[in-house]
Structures are given as C-alpha cells and as structure tokens.
C-alpha cells in the first residue's frame, strides 16, 4: 500500500501549492503585498504539470481501475472522481486565463481572486472524497497482487509525456516555489506591500 502513502504525499504537495496561491492572492487583494507574477507563474506551472499530467492519470489508470474490478458497486463514486479530474483540468485553465488577464490588467484581480477561492475549494473537496471514501474501500477490497501492481506504477513516478523520471523535476520546481514565496508562506525575500 505504498501507493496510498505516495498519493497522500502528492495531495499534500498539491494542496500546499494551491493553498499557498490562495493566501498570496488574498494578501494581494488586501494590499499587504504586490503581485509577484514570477511566483504565480511557478505555482501555475506546478499545478499544471504535476496533478494534471502525473497525479490524476495514475489514480485513474491504476488505483481506480483496479478498484472498479474488485468493487463494481463503487463505480458511481469513481466515475464522479474521474469526471472531476477532467472538470478540474478545465477549471485550472480557466483560472490560469484569469491570472493572465490580471497580469495584463490589475483591474481583473477580483475575478482572479474569486477563481482561486473556487478552485481551492473544488480541489479540497475532491481530495477529501478520495482520501475519506475511496482509500478505505481500496484498503478493504484490493488484493496483495493489486497493491503490488499499483505500488509499482506509483513508485516509478514517470512523466507519461516526456518519459523521464519526473520526481526530480517536480522536486526542483517545488523547491523553487518555496525559495521565491515570501514569508510566512515560503522563505523568499520579503515583498513590498502594494500601493
């Protein structure tokens, strides 16, 4: 069941970035800091590549697929979650477009901030449903052989598009976000308040 630990860890990493984005945008909205678009860009790049390209496909293709075989009655829940992976992808690109509009026009901040709030709630609900509903079922229903196959898939952690071990690249990207996010959210330089 190593894969469940990996998924939970990935959830935490994704949540840390999404929540970090939410807090930073709130700080910008409140006038406590000026927008740092390099930081926002790094966070968007992380969310775009990590959950959408690597994390969700692994859940769909391995964990959910095996669980569907063992517990057909769970299919509606898994269908909902898989649908949310697609919807989440669309919502992410809508949010990214809002950020790009804000980058060009500061008056678009409110729409961007609202979008971040909605996206973070969506992400949180989705993740909780996976951990609270699907994980307990998976622990009960899947066999040792299932877990071996799922664990192997998650342990390899390869980017299905570029075909190279992705963990190092994401680790570096995450480290960069930590390095440039201002305190208390990261350990980057203090950012001056917006005027």
């Amino acid at each position, binding site marked *: 069941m190593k894969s469940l630990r990996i998924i939970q860890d990935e959830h935490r990493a994704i949540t840390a970035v999404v929540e970090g984005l939410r807090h930073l945008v709130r700080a910008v909205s409140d006038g406590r800091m000026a927008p740092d678009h390099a930081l926002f860009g790094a966070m968007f790049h992380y969310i775009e590549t990590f959950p959408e390209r690597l994390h969700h496909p692994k859940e769909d293709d391995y964990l959910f697929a095996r669980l569907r075989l063992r517990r057909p009655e769970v299919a509606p829940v898994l269908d909902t979650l898989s649908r949310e992976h697609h919807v989440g992808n669309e919502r992410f690109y809508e949010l990214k477009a809002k950020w790009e509009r804000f980058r060009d026009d500061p008056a678009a901040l409110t729409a961007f901030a609202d979008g971040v709030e909605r996206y973070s709630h969506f992400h949180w609900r989705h993740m909780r449903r996976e951990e609270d509903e699907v994980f307990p079922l998976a622990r009960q229903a899947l066999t040792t052989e299932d877990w071996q196959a799922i664990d192997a898939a998650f342990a390899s952690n390869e980017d299905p598009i570029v075909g190279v071990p992705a963990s190092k690249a994401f680790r570096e990207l995450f480290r960069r976000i930590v390095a440039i996010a201002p305190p*208390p959210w*990261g350990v980057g330089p203090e950012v001056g308040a917006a005027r």
Partner: protein
Amino acid sequence: MPELLRVEALTAGYGDGVVLEDVSFALDEGDSLALLGRNGMGKTTLLVTLMGLTHRHRGVIAWRGRDLTTLPTHARSRAGLGWVPQERYMFASLTVEEHLTAVARPGRWDVKGVYRIFPRLEERKANFGNQLSGGEQQMLAIARALMVNPSLLLLDEPMEGLAPIIVQELMNVVRELVTEGGMAVIVVEQHAKLALSLTRNAIVLERGRVVYRSGSDALLADPATLDKLVSVS
C-alpha cells in the same frame, strides 16, 4: 540493520516528578520512528531525556549497545545524537554560517552539503539568527543538527507554526535524509499523519507511557484508531 538505540523501562522526569514511566522501544541504524500523543503526554520529555537533560529515575538508554545514561549532553551529541529542539534556539549574535561552522564535525555533512539541501540558507549566510523568518529558522535548526553528522536525528515538532509549502519542503528534506542518507530519525509531531508519512514505525505516548505501537503505514491506514489515540488534526 544493527540496533542503534534501545530504551528499556525508562522512567524519567524533572526533579522528583515523573513524566515518563516504563518506556521501552528500540531503533535500528537508519530506521525511523514517529513519536505521537496528545499535548503534554511526554513526547518532548522523551527527546530531552535522550539528550540527558532530565532526571532519569531508572531504566536503560543503550546506544549501539553501550550505556548512554551517564554521559552528559555534549557527549551524547558527539556520540551521534542530533537534536532539533522545538524552540530552535537561534543566536542573534551569530550569522547563519557561524551557526553551522560552530558545531561542525567531520563527516558526510558540511556547509556545502547543507546549502545544497537548503539553498535559501546560502543566500542568507551573512544574516543573523534573529533576522530569519520562521521557515528559515527551522531550516537552519535542521541544518545545524546535520553539521554534527548525527546517526540519529531527533526532530521535535519541526512543522510547528509553518506554512504548508514550507512544511512540505521540510518533509521532502527529512524524507531524503531518511531514505538516502541512512540516518535514523525520531519525529515528534502534533500532526500525526505527517509524522506517520515520514516514518516506518510509530509509538503513542499517553501520560508518559507507551500505549500503542505499530508500523506507521498500519496506523495511517486505521483512521479510527489514530483518531482515538491522538485526535488527529
């Protein structure tokens, strides 16, 4: 792996007061242990006792088979125990680099090595301890402990008060230390799931006694028991 630390029937506290009672556990070289329990149950006292800063009433602390109980704190550190206290204890009069070089001992970890895992500290190397943010202070506290090249790292609530992004970054680093560095680690953490995700085994303290022990994965997979034992946040 050979045994690194063995605690047997340890009873200890402050002065005559007993906080830990009859605590026993063992840790192999390179192994990892989550030390869980609600507030005030003796977790920090156990780490402080391992460092020799409480009164041991009875029991054994064996380090690679040798008795550790008569050694003062600095000798325990020299023997290979690295402690990252909850309070971090930064010195306002020392720069980041001085914090590191002041405690350095030969071994795998040197200034260059800790700057590699905490690049932000290199950027801040000329800053004083009191000029650091909370996240930077915690990074420095861990880096400083690494500079003594410990065989066992004792982490006391390393994520306390830090933002999620920094918590995740520190978790990544601790995981690297455990999986790649071969260093043993004991983690005290209020956020039980975090500690369990970093470790192989877990014990739960209640009123100074060990009331539960299991593999970390098994406890993580049993939310009802975990909630009952530590009221997961």
